[in-house]
């Protein structure tokens, strides 16, 4: 079975722009979570979705939003990009919430 996939792998944007990141979970997994990892730190939780409903939200501004589709894939949207949004964005899937999470390869976002 394929693992978690994310697209794109790399992205360069300028301040003020908008970005959409995509994630496809492992087949059969219904929960998708998003994390932001800045250089030298551990990943920070942004959102979790289960069966298309938001189950949890981290301490991120309203510029960050997400959704989950009927096929359990997910999008993370970030509006009005700031330099500080430059990071590795990781998607993880699990069969249910609070179960083992499996991570995708990430999307590296650079905001200039």
């Amino acid at each position, binding site marked *: 079975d394929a693992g978690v996939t994310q697209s794109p792998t790399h992205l360069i944007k300028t301040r003020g722009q908008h970005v959409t990141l995509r994630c496809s979970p492992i087949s059969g997994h219904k929960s998708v979570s998003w994390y932001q990892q800045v250089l030298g730190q*551990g990943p920070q939780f942004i959102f979790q979705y289960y069966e298309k409903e938001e189950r949890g939200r981290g301490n991120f501004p309203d510029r960050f939003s997400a959704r989950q589709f009927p096929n359990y894939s997910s999008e993370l949207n970030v509006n009005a990009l700031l330099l500080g949004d430059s990071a590795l964005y990781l998607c993880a899937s699990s069969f249910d919430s609070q179960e083992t999470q499996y991570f995708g390869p990430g999307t590296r976002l650079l905001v200039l």
Partner: protein
Amino acid sequence: GIQVEQSPPDLILQEGANSTLRCNFSDSVNNLQWFHQNPWGQLINLFYIPSGTKQNGRLSATTVATERYSLLYISSSQTTDSGVYFCAVYQGGSEKLVFGKGTKLTVNP
């Protein structure tokens, strides 16, 4: 919220050496996972270990939930073990994994 502390922050070994990485957490947890992040950023699952001991080849992990710590043992280290090791926990009632800052392991040939 829950605090997760990992030690040491950095570790440099010669190939073949053994090591122990520690993860302390400040509150009771429902789940604990150990990950290895390779130089390309991929987080690889090592163990799901809310309590007890598990082994997988040269790696083993022990979690003592009542004392709020977990240990990751790496034996006969290889250069491919290099990277950052993270532990992450779910706190009761929370849907988020809380990560420590990681231990950066460098294994020299």
